[in-house]
């Protein structure tokens, strides 16, 4: 198992809030914990940017997920003139978005290095050497401010993001630039929108076509052993106003298929996680607030499913949580399933330190038993 080496290091320099953060000793499945604004989600975003084939698109998706930017503008003429800072400034700590600022994200050999720089541009979109220029000043003097993205060591990787989220390559071409690795890494960022039925249906289609539906059913049986199969009813999955309809499951001993929603929110979320894991086979799954919607009593088994499936499908998982029960579930897994626990690592991210505090399974169990608060 494991053609691809797992990510074992992520380092962000000039990071929002903390200037620099390094997380190493990463395992197959990693849980980032820490206070609000400590940078947990930013770490996931950094890994997402590193893993993405199209960096420009990933930046815009992250901005959209943070509610800062609507991709495509939805016909809103204002979006065409949205300043770059409106969808990229949080990457730079918000207040310090000005020419000369940069953000560097380093992964291991598997992921490479990404450098995002802010520069002032002249009217022909050529960078001018004017460090400290702020966006509002640039407008006044007719200079555009742009985001400069470069994958170091990869040719033709330079492009600009300019007001409105438009992407320009260095030769002025506005076609969406993509930078292909020799072997691309599949990655998925699972925010709350992953859990809409339409998104699940899209993942399910992919799973069906690649004949991996058996993997999803196996994963689901960790929580619902009676489960025999899963089906998405045609035409029923776009109803975002009735978010739990359109998915039915066959259970052992039941004559009719029953709606997935009738088994509770936890099973629905578990399906979403199982589909995401299957879709990310051999790649990277990023789960922001992994415990959302899951009852505390099932967290141990959710972790069992996630870790076991991640091993089986060679997926590298990075998750965040604020939940005590989520950590308790992980401690339970480490204590009761040591063979899975050895694939797990917990990382405390903290603004006062530039290095995460890593806990392996033994330390997770020990700290939990001693009542030590790790969030």
């Amino acid at each position, binding site marked *: 198992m494991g053609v691809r080496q797992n990510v074992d290091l992520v380092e962000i320099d000039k990071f929002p809030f903390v200037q620099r953060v390094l997380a190493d000793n990463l395992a197959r499945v990693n849980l980032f914990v820490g*206070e609000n604004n400590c940078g947990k989600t930013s770490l996931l975003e950094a890994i997402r940017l590193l893993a993405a084939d199209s960096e420009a698109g990933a930046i815009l998706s992250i901005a959209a997920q943070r509610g800062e930017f609507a991709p495509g503008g939805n016909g809103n003429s204002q979006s065409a003139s949205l300043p770059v800072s409106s969808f990229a400034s949080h990457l730079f700590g918000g207040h310090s978005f000005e020419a000369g600022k940069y953000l560097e994200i380093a992964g291991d050999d598997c992921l490479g290095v990404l450098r995002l720089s802010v520069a002032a541009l002249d009217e022909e979109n050529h960078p001018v050497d004017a460090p400290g220029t702020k966006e509002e000043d640039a407008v006044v003097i007719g200079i555009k401010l742009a985001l400069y993205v470069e994958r170091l060591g990869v040719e033709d990787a330079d492009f600009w993001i300019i007001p409105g989220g438009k992407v320009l390559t260095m030769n002025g071409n506005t076609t969406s630039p993509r930078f292909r690795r020799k072997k691309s890494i599949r990655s998925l960022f699972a925010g709350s929108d992953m859990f809409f039925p339409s998104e699940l249906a899209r993942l399910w289609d992919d799973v069906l076509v690649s004949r991996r539906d058996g993997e999803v059913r196996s994963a689901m049986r960790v929580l619902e052993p009676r489960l025999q199969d899963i089906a998405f009813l045609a035409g029923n999955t776009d109803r975002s106003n009735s978010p739990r309809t359109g998915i039915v499951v066959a259970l052992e001993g039941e004559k009719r298929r029953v709606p997935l929603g009738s088994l509770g929110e936890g099973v629905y979320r578990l399906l979403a996680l199982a589909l995401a894991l299957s879709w990310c086979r051999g790649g990277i799954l990023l789960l922001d607030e992994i415990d959302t919607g899951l009852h505390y009593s099932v967290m141990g088994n959710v972790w069992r499913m996630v870790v076991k499936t991640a091993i089986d499908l060679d997926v590298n998982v990075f998750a965040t949580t604020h939940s*005590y029960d989520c950590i308790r579930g992980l401690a339970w897994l480490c204590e009761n399933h040591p063979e899975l626990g050895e694939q797990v690592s917990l990382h405390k991210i*903290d603004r*006062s330190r530039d290095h995460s*505090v890593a806990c392996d399974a033994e330390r997770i169990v020990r*700290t939990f038993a001693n009542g030590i608060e790790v969030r």
Partner: protein
Amino acid sequence: MTATIGAPTLHVEGPEDQHTILHLLLRHNIACGLAGKSPGIVDINPVGGAPALLDSMVDAIELAGSRPVGFVLDADNSLESRWRAVRDRLARVCIPTPDVPPTAGFIGRLGNAGARTGVWLMPDNSDRGAIEHFLDTLVGEDDALRPHARNATQQAKKLGAAFSDSDAVKAELHTWLAWQKEPGLRYGVAIKEKYFAHDSEAAIAFVTWFRTLYGIAELPLPGAE
């Protein structure tokens, strides 16, 4: 109920220490929480004995992040050896310590930026003993029953009572508690019921250490300017 998110923690040896400190601080208008049970501005966490508490110090300090973290241990039979054990743990997380524990309680940090880490050795960072010696300072000097409890306990020892000499003060205090209006209350509740005072020299020093460690300002007494 889960622990208070974001609240710093005071780690103590056991539930008796937890409740004693909780109620003492309440009488000083500081509302702490019981880790895993009730929320408060500081969670008080019973670890399960001095060896376990010592062994958990490095984890607790490293994982406290930017939050202050404190430890209350009994000095027991030797203040020097207990302090030596504490220093060993603090050295592992690069927190410098003095040769002898400060009488006002230890507060240190890693460099200038690290979170505050505090250690209080019961009863007063100067003498050997345990939380019972600290509680004993909260019994009024003019209390008529306290000397009688000592005499009665000593008499019981002569008659074959099984407690060890190192637990003599503990036995005396429980004897004394047996003679209060509601006999046999536990330390914490007895503080709440004001059988114990709250303002001995040692208690005020402890509360001052606690406020400094966790950055808790002293509130004016009701009616004060």
